[in-house]
């Protein structure tokens, strides 16, 4: 069964196809959810809610763009919606104490694994983490981020820069 047949079967609510689609994307989407949630429990909530949205709205997928990209957007939107609904995007912890003028050695990113990077991202405060994920990983512009998160573009830029510097600092600490 190729991807198109799988999608068509899911549009017909075929339980076997639904399970197969879940098995195909669950681990990857769990990674997306974990990046936004910061902990496994909330990530599982996002994953569950996201797959229900995928199956309930799969009729609207018209094969424009990649299917994985369509699914990923659903999971990102699900996570953002939930974070916003639960007022988790406000940063309870400020990162102002960091020296933002310090020199950044971006090559440090090459020296850590993906799992280590995931763990460091999870330690960021929710607001910084969300902006970082949207900009650095998903490729949103600061303008789009500002619209989605109801913040200004400058706030988005500022939070991203700070998040990046903090991560760089933590990576160095990890190496020591």
């Amino acid at each position, binding site marked *: 069964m190729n991807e198109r047949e799988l999608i068509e079967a899911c549009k*017909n*609510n*075929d*339980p076997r196809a*639904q*399970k197969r689609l*879940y*098995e195909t994307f*669950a*681990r*990857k989407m*769990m*990674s997306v959810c*974990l*990046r936004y949630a910061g902990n496994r429990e909330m*990530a*599982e*909530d996002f*994953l*569950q*809610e996201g*797959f*229900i949205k995928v*199956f*309930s709205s799969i009729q609207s997928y018209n094969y424009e763009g990649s299917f994985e990209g369509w699914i990923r957007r659903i999971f990102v939107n699900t996570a953002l919606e939930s974070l916003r609904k639960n007022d988790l995007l406000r940063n309870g912890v400020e990162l102002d104490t960091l020296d933002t003028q310090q020199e*950044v050695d*971006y090559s440090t*990113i*090459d020296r850590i*694994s*993906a*799992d280590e*990077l*995931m763990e460091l991202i999870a330690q960021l405060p929710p607001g910084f983490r969300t902006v970082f994920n949207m*900009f*650095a*990983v998903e*490729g949103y512009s600061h303008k789009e981020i500002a619209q989605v998160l109801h913040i200004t573009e400058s706030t988005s830029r500022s939070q991203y820069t700070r998040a*990046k510097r903090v991560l760089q600092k933590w990576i160095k600490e990890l190496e020591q």
Partner: protein
Amino acid sequence: MKIDDRYFEKSVQSKLAEHETDVRSDLWAAIESQLPVNTAIRKVPLYRRVIGYSAAAVTVGIVVAIVLWQTPDHQLPAPIITENDKGVLEIVQPQPATFHTSTASAATSLDSRSVSVAAESETEVMASFTNMPTTATHETEAVVSVADHMSKPGHTARTPQDEKTYRQKLDEFEHAGRNLKAKGKIPDAPEHSQKGAGIQLGMMAANASPGSSQNSARAIRTKIPTMLAAQHNPVYHFDHSMPISAGITVTKTLPQNWALESGLVYTYLYSKYRSNNGNGSQELHYLGIPLNAIYRFARIKRFSFYAAAGGQVDFYLAGRQKDEGYDEGISGSGYKELKHENVQFSIQANLGAAFTLYKQTELYLEPYMAYYIENNSSIHNVWKDKPFNFGLTLGIRTGF
């Protein structure tokens, strides 16, 4: 943007774009339980299913009624003549006058005691001819053979041997007649004189005992995913209320105190469930067709007592669950229509007592026990959690 910035972002993207994380193995079950059901099955609306089940039930009822209607209450008398007797013995319907003459003739050669016996026998014989029992037994054959013997032409000239044989057969006949009377096969009044077609219609209502059980979250189909996600593997405790049934029955009276009963029975099941992340209730509706064989074993004045055994098939009509969550700031409530319920078979046995109110109208009370066979349905109800159940039926039936 500096080149270093772009390099950093590309590095992050390349590391995380294909990154995967392990997923809890039971998460799919929680997701699956909340997915919409297969549209192919959902295409059949409820009203069509109700109509379909009702039409099937009515068809079955009509067929059973026609078959029973066409079945004679009495079996035809068993053949008296065997193959060996063909051409030798001709059966002649005894005429009362002839019969009387032959009996009287025989009585003249007997003493006074014999005369009284013969007179009594005459009465028995006449009773036997007017009240032939339902089934032909060896006793009835004996009766007829005596009658034949006495009505045979030329039988008046008897030898002592003939008289001895005659007296022996007369005694046998008398004994057989008494046996028949003792067994109730020769009622004082015709048994079915007021029965008509032997069809009875009734209305009934029944209650069975409630139950409770613990089940996994699979039994809950909620629209609120956070209810299930909030706690891993929640266990729900079901409290099933007393099932309530009501229906109409049709009973066909059969020979020898037997009867066959069927009908349509609606059943309502209500349950409540609770766990540490949500409460809710469940309503289920069924339409059943029972089929029971009934045997009346005693009649005392206006009371009669009977035992019944049989089975019932219940068709799922509709059902829904109402969730009420109260989980840490994530609460809500919603209805979920339940689908895909399988047919439920059960076997049951009753003991009944009926009180005749007027003519053939009687009030009855039946304690029963039933066993509900596992039907692999995903919906939990009292039949699944407590398959062996006791109940009480109250009803009224009347005959035509």
